[in-house]
């Protein structure tokens, strides 16, 4: 069961968008076989993207950090040198096995791994100094439930930081079927405005919220999930068929031997008052 509490308009919209079987089983089916790819993903393991997390999170020495939907632990391990302890939580056992290998590889001793659900966090209330989640909320069928849990486990004055795919609206709507074609457990990318609305609902105060654009490597993105070449081509054609505002935002072009286009993430820092 994935969080059934706290429906919001945006969550209702996510339900409407959902066209493929999702939930915990869908996420494990997608990410179990792909676990190792995420340790070397062009996005997830890119040192520049990991520096960006640390810059946003501003970890402190005494912090107890929780990285939710940690995947192969890239974010948790980036935070580990800066804090007292990090807990990485994920739904998928294969991802957590990869986390443990990665922690051993980098010699991180102050990390723990827990299998759990972002929407039903297995932690006491008010114990976490720093909550992070990166590139995962677009899988959450009810993001409001996950955000409520983030607010619950944080100490007062603690910070929650969110990084997730967040195109402007026209590009988001055009990309939606491509995202689902690539990853059936994708539910919905939220715009920055939708994010700030949801955060206000759970009582997290936004300290900073920005949308950052990247020059996106379409084939590299597909390779994270080992999408077969025929489907990559079909999804590329769909992307290049963008018209109007979506085309102006996405700016697809063939160059450097592949398809490149714009892609966006929301980088949001909040505090629990």
């Amino acid at each position: 069961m994935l969080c059934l509490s706290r429906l919001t308009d945006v969550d209702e919209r996510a339900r409407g968008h959902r066209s493929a079987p999702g939930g915990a089983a869908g996420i494990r089916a997608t990410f179990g076989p792909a676990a190792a790819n995420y340790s070397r993903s062009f996005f997830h393991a890119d040192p520049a993207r990991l520096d960006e997390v640390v810059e946003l999170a501003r970890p402190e020495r005494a912090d107890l950090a929780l990285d939710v939907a940690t995947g192969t632990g890239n974010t948790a391990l980036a935070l580990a040198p800066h804090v007292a302890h990090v807990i990485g939580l994920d739904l998928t056992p294969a991802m957590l096995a990869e986390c443990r290998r990665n922690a051993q590889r980098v010699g991180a001793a102050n990390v723990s791994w827990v299998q759990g659900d972002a929407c039903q966090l297995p932690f006491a209330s008010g114990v976490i100094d720093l909550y992070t989640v990166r590139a995962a909320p677009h899988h959450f069928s009810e993001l409001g439930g996950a955000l409520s849990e983030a607010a619950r486990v944080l100490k007062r004055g603690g910070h929650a930081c969110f990084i997730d795919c967040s195109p402007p609206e026209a590009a988001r709507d055009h990309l939606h079927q491509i995202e689902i074609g690539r990853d059936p457990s994708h539910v919905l990318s939220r715009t920055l405005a939708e994010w700030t609305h949801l955060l206000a609902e759970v009582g997290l105060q936004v300290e900073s919220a920005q949308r950052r654009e990247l020059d996106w490597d379409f084939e590299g993105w597909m390779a994270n999930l080992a999408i077969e070449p025929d489907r990559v081509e079909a999804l590329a054609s769909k992307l290049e068929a963008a018209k109007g505002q979506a085309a102006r935002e996405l700016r697809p072009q063939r160059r450097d031997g592949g398809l490149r286009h714009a892609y966006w993430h929301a980088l949001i820092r909040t505090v629990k008052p």
Partner: protein
Amino acid sequence: MISQELLQLLACPSCKGPIQPSEDGLALVCEAERLRYRIDDGIPVMLIEEATSF
């Protein structure tokens, strides 16, 4: 083996109440909900749908 520090932070994902190690050390137990969460290779599996009742 789950560290004492982690044990103090973990809670039952259902009732958010305290959990404690089972007598055999192979699981974490919520007495209030009478749920047992197994530990797989040192990683606690804190999922309600995978917990067993006792």
